[in-house]
């Protein structure tokens, strides 16, 4: 499957290069300052990832509009060139070959999902292009040896709970939870969140009493809940997506288990969540990469402009697309250039050495492009989910021990 497609893309790239060599010459230095900066993007607008793909597209479009309304980048307008990769990894490679090789875009930014980010980052690397991407939080993105890649979000899965771990380990001995139960879906992202916290709490001397991993197709959580409830831990942590988190919480409530703290990834931040568990949300914690209420300077503008443009408030996917744009823009403004060639290395070097203010907070990266931050922690208080950690972004104080659910 892979090698013929690969060969085709090489053939395309080669012929593109030949064509350019044939008709090129003398064209290079003629970049007038009114030319738009063209940003090439391939997104899954159809297929498996079409929902998040469209979300990211809106984020990119909102960024381009906001930037152009303010006079553009380096005085030039920003123009997006978006191709649909149909959620297909071979297609995404061909798309970026086309964008960089034959369309000669000035900048490229990433597609959606780890599966598509890795092959497309490889193409960008071959052309020495800066590659900032809005999705692809799994470990495999960062152990490929990419030097040009930057993940435009606060943290990878393992670091989502860092603020909570810090908070809990800093509690005085009498209050600190001593026992924790973990239940995580057998999925690199969901498990990563729970195990990231587990590692830190275990290092801090908090005992693990239950450690359950369940397959993604699990629908009955009665037995897992029974195991957790009978161990009576102070705290329960769910490495969940959506339905599993909801079902596990309900199963725990049915067994009348009342932990001092309950933290679940993803599910509690979903708009359907409170209704799904009959509003018994009291005190449930969840890490989140983006909140409309976060106090970061550019976020207010983003929410306003986005709502005006699309008639709805932005969610995490949209914020990730927008953040990617902000990161690239910061590098372009600092390096004073936006075109293929040497400029790209300047952009990459600048991002490796600097911090960027975005709608998800200040971002900085290590050598592999892994962001150095952590997710905000939100908690259900009354009928609303509020940011409680870190202290500088909080809307309410963390309630611990949490009220009964």
């Amino acid at each position, binding site marked *: 499957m892979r090698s013929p497609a690969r060969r085709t893309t090489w053939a395309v790239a080669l012929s593109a290069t030949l064509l350019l060599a044939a008709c090129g010459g003398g064209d290079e230095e003629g970049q007038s300052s009114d030319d738009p900066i063209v940003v090439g993007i391939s997104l899954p607008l159809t297929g498996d990832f079409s929902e998040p793909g469209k979300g990211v597209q809106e984020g990119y479009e909102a960024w381009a509009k906001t930037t152009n309304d303010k006079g553009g980048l380096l005085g030039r307008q920003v123009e997006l060139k978006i191709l649909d990769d149909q959620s297909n990894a071979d297609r995404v490679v061909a798309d970026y070959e086309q964008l960089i090789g034959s369309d000669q875009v000035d900048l490229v930014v990433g597609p959606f999902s780890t599966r598509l980010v890795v092959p497309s980052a490889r193409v960008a690397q071959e052309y020495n292009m800066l590659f900032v991407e809005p999705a692809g939080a799994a470990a495999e993105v960062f152990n490929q040896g990419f030097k040009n890649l930057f993940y435009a979000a606060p943290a990878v899965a393992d670091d989502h709970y860092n603020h909570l771990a810090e908070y809990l380990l800093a509690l005085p001995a009498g209050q600190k939870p001593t026992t924790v139960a973990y239940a995580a879906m*057998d999925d690199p992202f969901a498990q990563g969140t729970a195990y990231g916290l587990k590692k830190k709490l275990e290092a801090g001397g908090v005992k693990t009493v239950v450690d*359950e*991993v*369940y*397959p993604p*197709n*699990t*629908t*009955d959580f*009665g*037995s*897992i809940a*029974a*195991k957790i*409830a*009978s161990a009576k831990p102070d705290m329960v942590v769910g490495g969940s997506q*959506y*339905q599993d988190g*909801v*079902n596990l919480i*309900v*199963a725990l*409530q*049915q*067994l*009348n288990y009342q932990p001092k703290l309950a933290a679940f990834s993803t599910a509690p931040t979903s708009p*359907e969540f409170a*209704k*799904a*568990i*009959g509003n*018994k949300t009291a005190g449930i914690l969840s890490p989140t990469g983006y909140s409309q209420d976060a106090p970061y300077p550019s976020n207010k503008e983003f929410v306003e402009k986005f709502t005006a443009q699309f008639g709805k408030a932005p969610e995490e996917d949209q914020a990730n697309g927008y953040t990617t744009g902000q990161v690239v823009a910061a590098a372009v403004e600092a390096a004073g250039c936006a075109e293929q060639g040497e400029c790209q290395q300047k952009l990459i070097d600048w991002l490796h050495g600097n911090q960027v203010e975005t709608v998800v907070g200040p971002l900085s990266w290590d050598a592999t492009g892994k962001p150095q931050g952590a997710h905000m922690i939100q908690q259900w208080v009354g009928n609303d989910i509020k940011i409680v950690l870190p202290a500088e972004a909080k809307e309410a104080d963390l309630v611990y021990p949490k009220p009964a659910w």
Partner: protein
Amino acid sequence: MPSGALLFQSIILGLLLGGLYALLAAGLTLYFGIMRVVMIAHSAFLILAAYLAWWTSTELGIDPLLSMVVTVPLFFAAGVLLQRGLLSRLRPVTLTMMSVLITFAIALMIEGLLGYAFSGTQRRIQLSYGTASLELFGARVAVVKLIAFGLAAVSLAGLYVLMKRTQFGWALRATIQHRDAARLVGIDTERTAGFGFGLGLATAAVGGTALSLDTTIYPSLHWHWIGPLMAIIVVGGLGSVAGAAAAALLLGLAQSLLQIPMGATWAQTVFYVALFATLAIRPQGFFGGRLAQRF
């Protein structure tokens, strides 16, 4: 070594789960008994019924259990139509094989329509008694699970009485046991088979409603159910409702208890281990069912 309380709690959960499995598998074994049909779409109909229950609860604001007033007759009619219109027209030689393909297609259609009508968003019925539970010797019994178990017990008992005590039941069992002989004694086996199929699908309406009380549903959920249900009816002996019920209780209990030492991933395999063991040791099933031998 797990504590006694956890063991007791797991046994209760296992029995409740097994009861639900028994209800969900009842229709599946009935179809096979009546027509040697492998009905892949059974679990898709379960999810359809669950969605209708959810819709009743959210849009009309009434208890989801009331949706059965409409769904049970509706599914019965759909079952009769399905059997008369599609499955009875298949050639007997290729019936089992073709029925897999046809019902697979039906399952995909139901899944697609559910996605179209209700979107892929995962739904859960909001019930005032959703997390309520009763205490039983230190263990907790969730009210919704108890209702689901009750529905299973009532409908399986009803099915049993229907099969053993009524003229239609005798005709249906005769059709299952020996179609030619049944025809010789004057039973309209075609019509009986149609009604039998409708009966099977009516159990899916009850089963889906029971399922919806305590599950988060989404259109593709049925693929997670069809495997374990198929394993249950093979272990129970294809075509035997009582056998399927016994196998369901046993496997539900085994799954629940095995989760304590083995975890959720390995406990799930109990269905397939039981399936292989049955096929290797006793292909006709462990709880009755003479049919598989002939199959």
